[in-house]
């Protein structure tokens, strides 16, 4: 099955250490991960497990201390700004806090226009750009003509996060890293956001990596789950394997600590 899908990204021995000698902290400790086309992967870990640092390394925002990343078969080269830009046409991110993802001084149009420009659309006539932006907004059930020329503080949290998804629609990257995309959003909008992300995945065959601490979310949405603790992958596999039948002690304890409603939630194991 895996041979049919293309391998987009392979990371091996990925490590990130901060500081030297006595004060050295290893945030990510020799992590290996393969990402295939169209997969939905979840990296589950508590705060401090290193999952955000791993995400930033995969994105290319931080450089690894050790380890290699191969993108589409070739060693990833992001040494110059132009090469970084090329890489970022293929891998993008959605962040946890919709309020801090926007520059409060710029109108929201600039966010979408930046995406059009990144896909070499700078020379297009303005009407065509508006058409593209309207299409992107309607994909997430937002009306561009209502939002144009507005500032971020005039939108709600849910709208802002969905606009981020519209941005991804414009960019059409091969890999999307979603860092806790629903933790700061109301329960009612959560389903909408997850829906839209999956719709996007279906349309453009995008790989989605969820970085989360919510075991329930990982179970519901992913094809593959990685459990991360202290910078290492403790366990990995399909959601049924890892979450319903965990092998490692850490994973077992983690799953036990999540509140259940259909099964009896055992509180005695604290």
């Amino acid at each position: 099955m895996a041979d049919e899908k293309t391998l987009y990204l392979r990371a091996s021995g990925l490590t990130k250490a901060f500081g030297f000698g006595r004060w050295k902290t290893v945030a990510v400790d020799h992590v290996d991960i393969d990402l295939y086309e169209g997969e939905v992967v979840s990296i589950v870990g508590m705060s401090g497990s290193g999952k955000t640092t791993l995400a930033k390394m995969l994105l290319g925002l931080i450089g690894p201390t050790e380890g290699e990343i191969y993108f589409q078969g070739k060693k990833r080269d992001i040494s110059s700004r132009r090469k970084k830009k090329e890489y970022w046409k293929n891998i993008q991110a959605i962040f946890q806090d919709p309020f801090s993802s926007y520059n409060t001084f710029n109108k929201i149009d600039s966010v979408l226009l930046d995406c059009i420009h990144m896909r070499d659309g700078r020379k297009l006539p303005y009407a065509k750009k508006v058409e593209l932006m309207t299409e992107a907004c309607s994909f997430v059930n937002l009306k561009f003509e209502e939002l144009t020329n507005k500032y971020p503080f005039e939108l709600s949290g849910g709208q802002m996060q969905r606009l981020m998804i519209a941005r991804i629609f414009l960019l059409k990257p091969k890999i999307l890293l979603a860092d806790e995309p629903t933790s700061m959003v109301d329960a009612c909008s959560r389903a909408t956001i997850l829906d839209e992300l999956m719709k996007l995945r279906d349309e453009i065959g995008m790989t989605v990596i969820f970085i989360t601490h919510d075991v329930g979310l990982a179970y519901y949405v992913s094809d593959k789950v990685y459990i991360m603790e202290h910078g290492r992958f403790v366990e990995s596999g399909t959601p049924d394997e890892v979450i319903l039948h965990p092998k490692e002690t850490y994973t077992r304890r983690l799953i036990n600590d999540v509140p259940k409603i259909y099964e009896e939630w055992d509180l005695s194991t604290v």
Partner: protein
Amino acid sequence: MSNVVLEVNELTTKYVTRFGEDVYAVDHVSLKLEEGKSLGIAGESGCGKSTLALSLMGYYFPPLHYTSGEIIINGTNISKMSPDKVRKLILGREIAYIPQAAMNALNPTQRIINFIEDVFQAHDPNKNKKEIYETARKSFELLGLPAEVLQKYPVELSGGMKQRTVIAISVLLHPKVLIADEPSSALDVTSQKMVIKMLRNLMENGFVKSMIFITHELPLLYNVTDNIMVMYAGQIVEIGTAKETVFDPLHPYAKGLMGSIIVPEEGLRDVKLTAIPGTPPNLKNPPDGCRFAARCKYALPQCKVGSIDLRPAGNGRFYRCIFSEQELREAYKHG
């Protein structure tokens, strides 16, 4: 028929904005808390659950103002009491309140035991330090906290430990009612579990007679409280036992909310999550009729006029909708 510890009748409180506008964050809310039972309050952010918790204490300060209604605790009506009297007689003794991120209330320059001494001496100046230490130590041990915590500074404790310490301190005077507002939302799952266990312990050990637990995480509510109340736009839209509300919700909003629960349990990967489009109404000018009508997929023109009251559904269950139980269950079956 057990003892009613806390009774609230048609409580209405408002915020007054900088421009002098009134926002009725809690609109004619009534509830009864029985001894030995706990109540969970669920709802989106902005529905008024935190304001309700604040209002229940009877301790109002601008911009929060009391408008009307009664709060009766152990027979005493505290809704019109002066803030000073409330502070001396009610807070900590009858009702204890733990706000969100309560662990930040711990003074970083004081040991826990000094903090507890302050708390005691504010209520009972006669107790000496030895007595206080003994009482604190006994209570802490009963609640599963090691006695060494008392000698530590807050910065030496983990987040989960701090939260549990604050909860333990707030019930030292054995209040009748404990109101906890999102006591575990800033913690990781393991610490969360410890906090939940402690809260259940409090009830089981009789430390507090009853508890109100506020959160937006429904699986937690189900595991902690006996009854659940769902709030929307400042009003109660449904109230019933935890089991009924989670597995057989009546009000369309409650149904939508329960339908958005994700738990890592067998068979749940194929369930479709319900999404509720739109946003809650602006409480400066709440709409006529049902406040949820604008987002409800079963709404009819009748839903948008007049005022909709809570209607009983047997066994102390109530919901706020013009449709009958059978009509709602039929509608849900067809999707």
